[in-house]
């Protein structure tokens, strides 16, 4: 009986409904947020259990079935992304209950941000993410991308202020450009193959001019939305100027959504059209992103900007999956490494952004040079930032370490040692920008800056997310087992001697 419940429908519609209710019943946003966070757990557990016990799940909306209707589809990859969304989402929700608390002094500092609109937009964004991760139809995915894009832009704009509004504007234009490029690719695929279903396209796409053009258009659009160097220019201002909970969600989840779609298309649909040279190009751009993002993070004057540039750098690593998967017998390892990296980066980056947001909330600014000694005021938050930093650098025993380790092994076993050098140097650069901030924050000063009261929910959620990034380094077997279900690549997981 439990096996028959359409859990995926609930995973999409619960946040959709609560998002609209948050708009209708102003002032109930926080409660609706918590209802969503808690209420999503049973369907998520149910769906994960279904996928674990019976393999990938299909659901035909309207009962028509592909290709006439739209199918929902959940495999290991979807589950990983949904669980990641839920982890960060639950954290962000509890953080926001403090950040937007009506009793706090939020009004004076947080401009004129409207909590009701925040809750409505955030829950709808959550619904958009879940929609995207569960859809198996390329046009439905276009609508989901627009759904996600518009809610993300609105959330950035919510911060008010000249830089946030300008960042939102730029973000919207980039997002539209990316979606339209993707849409044209969808059109070409449809006219060449007569279907919009991912599964049917996977069977029919051969290397033809139409599928080659579709690959180019869709990859370009999605790469733009994922902010791969040199198309990253819109990300730092948008992520750095958004309200704290929004920054966390944008960096941890929203950019991963378009990357997820890229993974699906490249490894399931475009297997016959992508060439090693294009994969190599994405890898090289990834390397450039790692260096450029890290250097910019090293030079950033503001903490949130530092964290945002760190996202540019870390997104570079996940693009290494494409060239690494081309190696002989290393494909599955690269796949797992990339997914593990995405998962742990989500937790670590959300923790880092939430902690940075707490600093901004407490001290009223986030200029790194003036943050000496803040650890004396916000020890829990700084500890959370530290734990997140360990995962971002990729030190054991963090999730970031496992991700990098798998990528490293894939590089070495596939005879592509040059990527391994990049991964190691990237880790050193991350250490440099993380410690640059720590040397300020942990220094002892007599005159500690004044800090206003910070709700406990804000401090603890950042810590919890940081610790989950750590926990991912300890319980690696379960996520890896989930990643195997329905994976488009097969092969050993090259753990390189680690248990």
């Amino acid at each position: 009986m439990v096996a028959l419940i359409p859990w995926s429908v609930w995973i999409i519609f619960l946040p959709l409904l609560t998002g609209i209710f948050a708009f209708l019943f102003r002032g109930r946003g926080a409660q609706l947020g918590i209802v969503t966070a808690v209420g999503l757990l049973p369907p998520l557990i149910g769906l994960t259990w279904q996928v674990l016990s019976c393999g990938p799940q299909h659901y035909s909306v309207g009962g028509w079935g592909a290709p006439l209707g739209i199918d929902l589809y959940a495999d290991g990859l979807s589950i990983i992304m949904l669980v990641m969304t839920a982890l960060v989402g639950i954290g962000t929700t509890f953080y926001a209950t403090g950040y937007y608390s009506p009793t706090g002094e939020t009004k004076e500092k947080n401009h004129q941000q409207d909590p009701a609109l925040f809750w409505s937009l955030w829950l709808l964004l959550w619904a958009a993410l879940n929609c995207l991760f569960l859809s198996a139809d390329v046009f439905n995915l276009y609508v989901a991308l627009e759904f996600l894009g518009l809610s993300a832009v609105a959330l950035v704009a919510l911060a008010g202020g000249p830089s946030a509004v300008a960042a939102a504007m730029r973000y919207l234009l980039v997002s539209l450009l990316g979606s339209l490029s993707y849409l044209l690719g969808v059109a070409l695929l449809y006219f060449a193959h007569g279907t919009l279903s991912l599964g049917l396209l996977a069977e029919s796409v051969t290397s033809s001019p139409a599928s080659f053009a579709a690959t180019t258009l869709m990859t370009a659009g999605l790469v733009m939305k994922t902010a791969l160097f040199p198309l990253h220019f819109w990300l730092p201002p948008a992520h750095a100027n958004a309200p704290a909970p929004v920054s966390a969600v944008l960096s941890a989840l929203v950019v991963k959504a378009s990357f997820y779609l890229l993974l699906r298309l490249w490894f399931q649909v475009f297997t016959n059209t992508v060439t090693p040279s294009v994969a190599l190009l994405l890898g090289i751009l990834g390397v450039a992103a790692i260096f450029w993002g890290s250097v910019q993070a090293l030079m950033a004057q503001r903490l949130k900007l530092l964290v945002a540039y760190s996202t540019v750098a870390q997104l570079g690593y996940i693009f290494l999956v494409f060239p690494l998967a081309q190696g002989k017998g290393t494909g599955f390892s690269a796949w797992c490494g990339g997914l593990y990296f995405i998962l742990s980066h989500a937790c670590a980056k959300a923790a880092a952004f939430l902690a940075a947001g707490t600093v901004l909330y407490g001290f009223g600014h986030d200029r790194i040079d003036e943050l000496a000694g803040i650890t004396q005021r916000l020890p829990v938050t700084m500890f959370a930032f530290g734990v997140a930093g360990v995962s971002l650098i990729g030190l054991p025993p963090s999730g970031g370490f496992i991700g990098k380790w798998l990528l490293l092994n894939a590089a070495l076993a596939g005879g592509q040692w040059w990527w391994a050098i990049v991964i190691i140097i990237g880790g050193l650069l991350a250490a440099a920008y993380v410690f640059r901030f720590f040397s300020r924050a942990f220094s002892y000063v007599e005159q500690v800056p004044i800090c206003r009261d910070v709700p406990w929910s804000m401090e603890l959620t950042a810590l919890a997310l940081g610790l989950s990034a750590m926990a991912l380094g300890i319980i690696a077997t379960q996520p890896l087992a989930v990643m195997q279900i329905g994976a488009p690549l097969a092969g050993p997981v090259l753990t390189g001697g680690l248990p």
Partner: protein
Amino acid sequence: MNISLLYSLVGLALFSLGLYGLIAYGHLLRKILAVNVMGSGAFLILVALARGWRQTSPDPVPHAMGLTGLVVAVSATALALALACRVQETTGSTQLTEDGSD
């Protein structure tokens, strides 16, 4: 040359023109106009090809997709215009500065 091919190539030209306008011009209103032209081009390709090279009645699925796209486009345009007005109100400029990072 038939009607389906003619209009799909016009759509392609509109898409490219819009893309060029979006990149080349600074004024936000112009950029938003360019995105709209780009979108019209994409929908035109979609619907022109749906007519098929010589079918008697066109395929309704791309029509539905085009209609959906049109509505999404008007939503995005409305949000973009509201943002553009707000950008001009807060920064006093109708363009985005090259480096908006700080």
